């Protein structure tokens, strides 16, 4: 048995800028390592990250000190385990089921996607990240949650504010002031929509939770809606931008994808390649062996699914590359275990079956003239910050 190694060199700034070479090295040399700067234990191999997420008795999501609580003004289901987590999760899960998407939402999402894509100016260079990826993700989510009245801008701002608050490990009061203000706006909107959702229920998450046979407390209904706002815009937005980048920088694959309509494969490979949610946090409830090392109780463990998704033991030596023709292997972009992403099926359908085919049907000859101009960023959430494409 080995002592837990400590990495004094790596900083959050490094991991935000370009984490992949660092993770590659960690997978090879120190797959379980304490990162001195954050005092958190990073776990980078696929086998370990999957096991940790599937073993909630030892690796709990319950974290009493998380800044998520002040940011969301509630202990959310993300930070709960067991029956309590399941009850809150299942209260809204039906709204995200493949069946409901098929029967209730597919036509609407198609219309919304057509509408947003048709606003883009042919022949011009636009920032697709700003002009499409963010707004369409916000609009679709607003409908799915039953918050149609919220604007794209509000949805995106609330989402970012909640994320910034949840990541406020330094407890900077300014960030919590901003999240408090966003909470007040969201609460006011939710309050105003209750009567509509009671009178005319639909299959949105809000209606589903309000009109359930045994409804969860209203405070948790609100917390769930906020979790969905905080966690439901960045991921489809970043996934879309990442996939478009992957296709436009690999023209051979792009041609084949168009020819054979392999949009769902493009989706899976995009989220494998750069997982929109790169990292998850857990807390050990007891001493435990991970790989060759012992980790004590009460330690903060970070599973790096970004790294697991490029693990050589699964993907061979070319896991760093975007390749939609690679052998199909399950990836961990949606996590595993009880906290497996509630929006996985929605994302596959809205992006893989609706958005990507529609976007490239309209602009089959889209180009990314200078990939070096695209700025990638993020440790917890990762994706391009801009995507200057020419629309043809």
């Amino acid at each position, binding site marked *: 048995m080995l002592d837990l190694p400590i990495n004094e060199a790596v900083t959050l700034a490094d991991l935000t800028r370009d984490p992949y070479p660092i993770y590659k090295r960690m997978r090879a040399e120190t797959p379980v390592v304490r990162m001195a700067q954050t005092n958190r234990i990073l776990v980078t191999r696929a086998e370990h990250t*999957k096991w940790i*997420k*599937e073993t909630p008795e030892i690796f709990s999501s319950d974290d009493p000190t998380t800044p998520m609580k002040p940011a969301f003004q509630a202990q959310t289901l993300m930070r709960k385990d067991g029956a309590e987590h*399941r009850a809150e*999760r*299942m209260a809204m*899960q*039906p709204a*995200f*089921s*493949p*069946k409901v998407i098929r029967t209730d939402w597919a036509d609407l999402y198609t219309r919304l996607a057509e509408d947003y894509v048709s606003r883009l100016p042919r022949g011009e260079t636009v920032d697709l990240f700003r002009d499409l990826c963010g707004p369409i993700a916000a609009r679709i989510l607003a409908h799915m949650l039953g918050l149609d009245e919220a604007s794209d801008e509000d949805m995106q701002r609330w989402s970012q504010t909640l994320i910034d608050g949840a990541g406020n490990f330094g407890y900077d009061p300014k960030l919590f002031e901003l999240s408090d203000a966003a909470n007040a706006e969201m609460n006011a909107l939710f309050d105003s929509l209750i009567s509509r959702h009671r009178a005319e229920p639909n299959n949105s998450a809000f209606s589903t939770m309000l009109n359930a046979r045994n409804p969860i407390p209203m405070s948790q209904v609100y917390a769930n809606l906020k979790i969905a706002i905080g966690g439901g815009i960045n991921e489809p937005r970043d996934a879309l931008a990442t996939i478009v980048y992957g296709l436009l920088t690999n023209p051979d694959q792009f041609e084949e994808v168009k020819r054979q309509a392999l949009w769902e494969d493009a989706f899976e490979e995009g989220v494998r390649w750069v997982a929109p949610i790169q990292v998850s946090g857990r807390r050990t409830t007891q001493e435990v062996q991970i790989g060759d090392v012992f980790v004590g109780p009460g330690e903060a463990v970070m599973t790096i699914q970004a790294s697991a998704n490029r693990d050589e033991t699964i993907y061979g030596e070319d896991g760093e590359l975007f390749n939609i023709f690679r052998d*199909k292997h*399950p990836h961990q972009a*949606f*996590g*595993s*275990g*009880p*906290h*497996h992403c509630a929006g*996985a*099926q929605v994302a*596959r*359908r809205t992006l893989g079956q609706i958005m990507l085919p529609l976007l490239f049907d309209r602009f089959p000859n889209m180009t990314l003239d200078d990939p070096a101009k695209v700025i990638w960023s993020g440790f917890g959430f990762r994706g391009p910050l801009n995507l200057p494409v020419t629309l043809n």
Partner: protein
Amino acid sequence: MVKLIFENAQGSRQIVDARVGDNIMFTAVSNGIAEVVGECGGAAMCATCHVYLSPELAEIADPKQEIETEMLDCAAAEVTDFSRLGCQVQITAEMEGMVVHLPESQV
């Protein structure tokens, strides 16, 4: 070990050796049955391990718990009286030679 037969929506069959005590999802995934995904790893949280038991198998399998019924509602393919989450069905020695039907799609 018992033999379990997986039959896909097109009717083609694959016979696998299953360990007593394992669940159907795990058995399928570790034998490369592509029609079973099992993305949540058996937490009854993803419904991508949806299968249809043959009547004889349904008869002897442990009954469904509430959490399974709830999650099955979120399966992609049609749900019938024989639908189960593969991860919630334990394999027993009596299942020798029985058939598990696979849905058209899990996503």
